[in-house]
């Protein structure tokens, strides 16, 4: 239950004052609550834990992290 996994927001809707979404996890679609990440929108990746989005995955930030990791590896080759 500690795990949070990333999924793609496919569509969003409101129900009982909750901001909800259908989120696609590599082909498995689930109904996820986005109330705690109101900035999340269709097309975003969200990190989901027990049916709730914890955060919107910032694609740019993720790419920068990966770049930094790659650069760290390259240093060794210099």
């Amino acid at each position: 239950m500690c795990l949070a996994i990333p999924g793609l927001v496919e569509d969003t809707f409101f129900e009982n004052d909750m901001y909800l979404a259908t989120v696609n996890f590599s082909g498995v679609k689930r109904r996820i609550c986005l109330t705690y990440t109101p900035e999340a929108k269709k097309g975003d990746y969200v990190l989901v834990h027990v049916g709730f989005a914890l955060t919107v995955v910032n694609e740019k930030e993720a790419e920068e992290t990966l770049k930094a990791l790659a650069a760290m590896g390259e240093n060794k080759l210099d």
Partner: protein
Amino acid sequence: MKHLNEYRDAKLAAQIIQEIQNQTKNNWTIMEVCGGQTHTICQYGIQDLLPASINLVHGPGCPVCVTPLEQIDKCIAIAKQPDVILCSFGDMLRVPGSQSDLLEARANGADVRIVYSPLECLKICTENPDKNIVFFAVGFETTAPANAMLAWQAAKQNISNLFMLVSHVTVPPVLETVLNNENNLVQAF
């Protein structure tokens, strides 16, 4: 980007490990807090890949591991009541109490249901108006808001047959206790 394959690049991992080897000059004792991290460290042999001067200490673990025995026993006793449907996250079912676990209670006829999200309890409540639905609400800071949303929604939707057995824990006091111990060797988390 799928945020999965990008983080599973063996060549990149090997380079980073080499870089850690190159840069580590002193002894380090680092504690990982979460049981999921401990599992990953053990499963992929990360400790063996790191320099010998980096010592990983396995920390307090996840809410599943640290739920007090009495709470598990209480939960099993509640689950055995005939008018109860006990809802729980799946990984709590195998956690042993003093005598048995929830899985055994279910095998013996208790109505124990696994929910992925706490909100699934709402549907179970409305579909079973003659039963008391008890949700075993465990979790760290990350899970508490999800469990709170269940309570808020139940009140909002006038659901009167939902009960919660709450066993939440917070992480910072544990880290503080570790750091304040006079024999503490942990330098980072």
